[in-house]
């Protein structure tokens, strides 16, 4: 086999591509893959004949060749520099005992700090880092679901040339050749396109690259990011990040700013807003939120006063507020009666709490308006109190924050010879009027690096699989600027490279460990005591005091550009406005392959596995649309087709679209429409003059909640602000104490006895708890068709209700886990003792006792039980099996399952407490949903202990049981929403 020595290395590389825990079982399984066939074609044309025809003989021949060439012994990947053979148990490693690591995952370039739970070297759960100054442990659905991205079976796992897998050697050689060529021209024609970057190491590396090749240029493309610094450049003369200190703001007026909605800011905003809200609940100051918006958002949902108004009217509203506050240059435009009333109330709130109020305008509005909003805040005395400024957290490339269009111009003019795309997918997400694909064709060397072989990768010469955050060394900054170190929790089990390695490779440096690259960055900053600080930062998960200091430069100009005249909205069908939004669960499409997020019901529509064209009730009435009608939406000569959804509370002429769907790969293929196809450079966030036409077809909507009207029931209760403080209005009966008469005797409950309280006044409906529950409890995903049939498996759901006029309804959200009823109808119904009550007050389901009569679910008034209609688990690919929490049983076909109050966590705490000979402390058991909640709306603990946090919550006069009339004595109770945001009940309009 000597003549094949050159190819043997390649095959060895193929085999060694799968490192870490071997997720292929045998060589023949590997040899049977398409990738193997492709590699064989590439490297051993002679063998292609053998592998091409898959009869038994030829397959065996090919396999024999591969075995001989690969040489089973010599194929090991280069060992990680810290790898230890597992001959003896490493110190501190105990089988079955979890280890926690502090690290971070990223969303849109910003760090989301996490504590990651690992078992035997594989991460199984991500939680928020409670010590982090910005988030304080808050999480969002993206953070919770990042784990599944790590294990995504469809993640790219090998470098490819022209779409075909090749060995790393070939890639390295090609890259070295390209680097040599670039050296000749000082990097002329080299362009680097990245997403938003906050990683100091990456910034350093890019700076080094630009230093080596001064003619190279770096561009940033972040589909859902906006040029955020126009206003501060205008007002302060320098770019600054604006940080909302919602924890200090007693009155917030939001003009189309979804401050509590999905995005990198959600966790810190949610945490801070809820701190203020709790202060208000406890009688300390006010917490008022007034929102003007066109399409419903989570911020609007929490607002006490929501004005439904077209997005184009935000300028008029802002100018009106500014003018009344006496900001020079503001031009009060005529307002409608409704608008001026709202402005009046907003002004009252802002003035009443001057110095503790703020006004925020959506980042998608023009810089001129942003500047005026800043001046309004200056007038309110918000600078330095409710608003703080820092130097930009994200790196600013020389060409501006977003410069894809400039790059595409150059590409089209054939001025780009080498294009390196780092973790971006512009072929999918670029604006429709920017013909990115055509321009890309003109670049002679195109290198794409990403987690997936995506649409851009398919158009590139080279594709390099990037490492996931959870398997790489890196660093990144949270939105507040605090830097986190990202450390790997698992050795990559695919053959991937980090962005750091790739950039190092590009500049001719091979074989440097990523950790050293990151260390180098911080060594330069810290100088002395490096190792101590490094270890400390790794343990904490972030670097203390690393956020840029708050600055407050003097205002350089107070010039206000006059209000662009916007015609008042008309009622004609031709005047439809389109508003683009990030998708609340798959963002800009980067999470499209994440089943946890795909199956998370989107707020409001409760849609899963797809997006809808949300139309206002008025448009629906005009055009005779109902949910599920297929419609074609045309805007500027382009059109998309999707399912219509009648969205109560949406502005009369507004159609809301979300990005992220309409992809052509992975599990997302064929789902929804691609809103990027309607987006233009000039109008990236909204478009006027859209036309909507019914096609006549119907689409099945996989929603999890078909009915959303509260129908006069009081599932979600609201109390007046004045009543909320009156104590003793209603009292939660003590555990076991009879409420209404029951046929069954009341039980005595010994300590501990578990209960939960959910504060509906602070729940923002973000879904973090839903995804956290999925991750913690191995909840299976069932897919679009089964969700449409009502068979989703979520143990915890978030119900949405509308109250009142569909054109301007009150919206409520209500997380519904199992109620753990003391008089549980399910337990009474089960014939085989599978639904039982534990001595500590849990309503438990014994999976291996369950025979699947489904009586428990039929009898459950809350319908929180979920049934395994099929075998949802045993065919999971090994990667997904690795993502499971080993503390929680994986359920088989035909059994009922439900929320357990995370009984595995209770057991763990009990065992620990027993070993230490003490009772379980309050706060020692934190359920997954509770931990995930960005607003700390969920409390959990021992309800026999009057001092426990949950008991104190339940003692609130706002406490009530859902469906009290069913007389089930639930252990999960709710705290009613407070109508209003100040003690006087002000703010409600």
């Amino acid at each position, binding site marked *: 086999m000597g003549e094949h020595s050159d190819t043997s290395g390649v095959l060895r590389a193929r085999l060694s591509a799968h490192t870490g825990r071997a997720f292929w079982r045998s060589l023949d399984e590997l040899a049977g893959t398409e990738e193997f066939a492709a590699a064989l074609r590439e490297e051993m044309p002679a063998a292609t004949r053998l592998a091409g025809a898959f009869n038994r003989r030829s397959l065996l021949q090919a396999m024999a060749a591969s075995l001989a060439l690969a040489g089973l012994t010599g194929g090991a990947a280069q060992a990680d520099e810290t790898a230890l053979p597992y001959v003896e148990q490493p110190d501190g490693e105990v089988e079955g005992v979890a280890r926690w690591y502090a690290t971070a995952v990223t969303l849109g370039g910003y760090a989301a700090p996490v504590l990651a739970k690992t078992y035997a070297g594989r991460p199984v759960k991500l939680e928020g880092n409670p010590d982090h100054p910005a988030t304080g442990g808050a999480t969002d659905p993206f953070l919770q679901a990042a784990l599944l991205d790590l294990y995504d079976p469809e993640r790219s796992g090998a470098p490819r040339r022209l779409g075909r897998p090749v060995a790393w050697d070939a890639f390295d050689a090609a890259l070295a050749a390209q680097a040599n060529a670039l050296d000749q021209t000082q990097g002329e024609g080299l362009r680097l396109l990245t997403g938003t970057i906050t990683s100091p190491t990456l910034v350093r590396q890019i700076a080094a690259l630009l230093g080596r090749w001064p003619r190279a240029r770096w561009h940033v493309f972040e589909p859902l990011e906006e040029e955020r610094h126009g206003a501060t450049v205008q007002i302060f003369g320098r770019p600054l990040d604006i940080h909302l200190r919602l924890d200090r703001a007693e009155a917030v007026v939001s003009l189309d700013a979804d401050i509590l909605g999905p995005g990198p800011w959600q966790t810190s905003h949610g945490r801070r807003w809820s701190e203020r809200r709790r202060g208000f609940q406890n009688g300390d100051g006010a917490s008022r939120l007034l929102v003007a918006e066109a399409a419903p958002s989570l911020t609007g949902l929490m607002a006490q006063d929501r004005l439904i108004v077209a997005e184009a009217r935000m300028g008029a509203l802002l100018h009106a507020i500014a003018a009344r506050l006496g900001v020079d240059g503001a031009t009060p435009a005529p307002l409608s009666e409704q608008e001026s009333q709202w402005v009046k109330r907003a002004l009252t709130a802002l003035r009443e709490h001057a110095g503790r109020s703020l006004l925020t305008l959506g980042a998608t509005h023009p810089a001129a308006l942003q500047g005026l909003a800043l001046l309004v805040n200056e007038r309110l005395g918000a600078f330095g109190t409710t608003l703080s400024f820092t130097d930009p957290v994200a790196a600013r490339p020389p060409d501006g924050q977003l410069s894809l269009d400039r790059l595409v111009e150059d590409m089209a003019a054939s001025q780009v010879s080498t294009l390196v795309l780092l973790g971006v997918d512009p072929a999918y997400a670029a604006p429709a009027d920017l013909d990115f694909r055509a321009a890309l064709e003109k670049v002679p060397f195109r290198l794409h690096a990403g987690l997936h072989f995506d649409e851009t990768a398919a158009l590139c010469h080279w594709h390099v699989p990037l490492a996931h955050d959870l398997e790489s060394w890196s660093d990144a900054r949270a939105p507040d600027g605090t830097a986190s170190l990202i450390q790997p929790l698992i050795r990559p089990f695919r053959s991937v490279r980090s962005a750091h390695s790739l950039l190092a490779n590009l500049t001719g440096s091979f074989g440097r460990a990523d950790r050293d690259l990151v260390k180098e960055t911080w060594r330069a900053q810290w100088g002395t005591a490096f190792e101590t600080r490094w270890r400390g930062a790794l343990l904490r998960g972030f670097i203390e005091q690393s956020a840029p200091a708050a600055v407050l430069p003097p205002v350089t100009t107070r010039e206000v550009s006059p209000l662009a005249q916007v015609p008042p909205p008309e009622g004609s069908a031709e005047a439809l406005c389109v508003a683009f939004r990030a998708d609340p669960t798959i963002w800009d499409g980067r999470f499209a392959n994440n089943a946890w997020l795909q199956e998370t019901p989107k707020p409001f529509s409760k849609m899963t596995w797809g997006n809808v064209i949300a139309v206002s009730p008025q448009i629906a009435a005009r055009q005779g649309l109902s949910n599920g009608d297929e419609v074609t939406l045309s805007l500027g000569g382009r059109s998309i087709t999707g399912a219509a959804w009648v969205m109560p509370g949406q502005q009369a002429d507004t159609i809301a679209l979300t990005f992220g769907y309409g992809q052509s790969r992975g599990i997302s293929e064929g789902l929804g429409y691609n809103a990027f196809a309607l987006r233009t450079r000039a109008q990236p966030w909204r478009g006027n003059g859209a036309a909507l036409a019914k096609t006549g077809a119907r689409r099945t909507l996989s929603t999890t909640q078909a009915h959303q009207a509260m129908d006069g029931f009081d599932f979600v209760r609201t109390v007046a602000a004045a009543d909320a403080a009156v104590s003793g209005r209603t009292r939660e009966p003590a555990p076991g104490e009879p409420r209404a008469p029951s046929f069954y005797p009341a039980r005595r409950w010994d300590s501990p006895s578990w209960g939960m309280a959910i504060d509906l006044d602070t729940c923002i409906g973000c879904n973090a708890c839903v995804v956290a529950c999925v991750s913690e409890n191995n909840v299976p995903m069932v897919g679009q068709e089964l969700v449409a049939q009502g068979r989703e498996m979520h143990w915890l759901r978030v119900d949405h209700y509308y109250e009142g006029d569909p054109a301007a309804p009150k919206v409520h959200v209500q997380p519904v886990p199992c109620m753990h009823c003391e008089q549980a109808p399910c337990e*009474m119904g*089960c*014939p085989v003792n599978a639904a039982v009550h534990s001595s500590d007050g849990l309503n438990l389901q014994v999976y291996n006792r369950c025979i699947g009569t489904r*009586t428990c679910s039929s009898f459950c008034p809350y319908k929180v039980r979920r049934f395994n209609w099929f075998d949802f688990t045993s065919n999971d690919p090994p990667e997904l099996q690795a993502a499971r929490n080993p503390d929680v049983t994986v359920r088989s076909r035909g059994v*009922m399952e439900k929320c357990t109050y995370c009984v595995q966590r209770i057991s763990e705490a009990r065992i620990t407490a027993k070993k230490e000979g003490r009772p379980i402390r309050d706060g020692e058991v934190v359920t997954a949903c509770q931990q995930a909640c960005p607003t700390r709306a969920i409390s959990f603990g021992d309800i026999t202990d009057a001092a426990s946090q949950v008991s104190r919550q339940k003692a609130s006069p706002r406490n009530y049981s859902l469906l009290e009339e069913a007389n089930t004595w639930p252990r999960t109770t709710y705290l009613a929403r407070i109508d209003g945001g100040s003690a006087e009940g002000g703010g409600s309009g």
Partner: protein
Amino acid sequence: MSDFAGGTPDRYAAVTQEITSIPLRFPAPRGWWILFGFALTLLLTFFVAAGVLFRYGVGVWGNNIPVNWGLAISNYIWFLGIGHAGTLISAMLLLLGAHWRNALNRFAEAMTLFAVICAGLYPILHLGRPWLFYWMAPYPNTMTVWPQFKSPLAWDFFAVLTYLTVSVLFWFIGIVPDLAATRDRARTRGQQVFYGLLALGWRGSARHWTRWQQAYRLTAAIAVPLVVSVHSEISLLFAAGPIPGWASTVFPPYFVLGAAFSGFAVVAMIAVVLRHALGLQDLVRERHLDLLGIFLLATGLMTTYGYWAEVFDVLYSGEPQELGTLQDRISGAYAWSYWGAVIANFLPLQLLWFRSIRVSPIPLFLIALSVTIGMWMERYMLLVTSLYRDWLVSSWGEYHASFWEWALFAGMIGVFLAPFLLFVRFLPVVSAFEIKETLAQEERQQEADEREASRA
């Protein structure tokens, strides 16, 4: 057959001859084979549908959360209801001494038997893990777990099993003397062995008859309370849950009467068909059709009362959830099942006030068919309209039976029809000796009357 005092042996012999000749020389072989072929096709459908179900799980059906129970459970109740008439006619009327039952009891019992088998299969098939169904039985096991005795399902399991056992015993005890008669008339060796084995060595001695009378009446006495208990128990499957629409106290009698109603309807249909196909007009006489019609009317009117009582309960309670369910029944997505039940069960029924309708086979058959369908709709309505919109608006959802559910339903009719046709073909469909007993009594009565008349 012993001779009856003062009787005309020829008439008795003719009765026996007429009944036992059916299995020995079947009168309508062509029609039977066509029907049996049809039944076998359905039976095959059953095995395919059950195979698919076992292979993939209950997910192949249309059930979901909130409608956990669908066609399987409504059909279970329907089949079990049908199974009520046999026992009611045989056992209760036997004990009450209503001798006219003797023309109907045998095939009514057979119908009961096969309907109960169908009913019993359904809850097992609908389980998530059907292979573990025996966990509902209280048996000593290494898990040291008993069934959960508060659950109506555990009691359902006992009730159906008991009912099936007693029905088999009652039916078989009743048929033994006729099997012996058939054996005695059998010409071929095969028939002699077949009927001989089944006849258990019956020789018709006085001691045999004494024991038989004791056993038969005792089993009847056991069976009668079961008629009430089984369907009361099933109503608890609903009434025990806190679901709006299931909470009426009228449920147990309402279910039992509904069961008897549907059962009489099916008995009437079978009586009309058998009477015609096997030429039994002189045994199953107009009088029997008349009485069946009266029973149908009576139980039907009692079921109507149940409907009213249910509505009254809701209106009287004024509970918003209950009112909502009532509204869903009347005008919701499944209003067809409510109005279908009301119309099919009660409108055609009113014709039975007229004797001329009651005694004419075709109208009676059609009315009974309408009731059978109406009662099916009622079971479906009670189940689905309560579950699809229960307490929380957020968990409402609709249910649509899938292809495999309908296939299983069709197959289940095969499970009923195939053995019933075998029974019709190979066993005495009418109780010969009991008819002769009735005949003898009538004759004795006649003689006594004549004596009275002559003395006067």
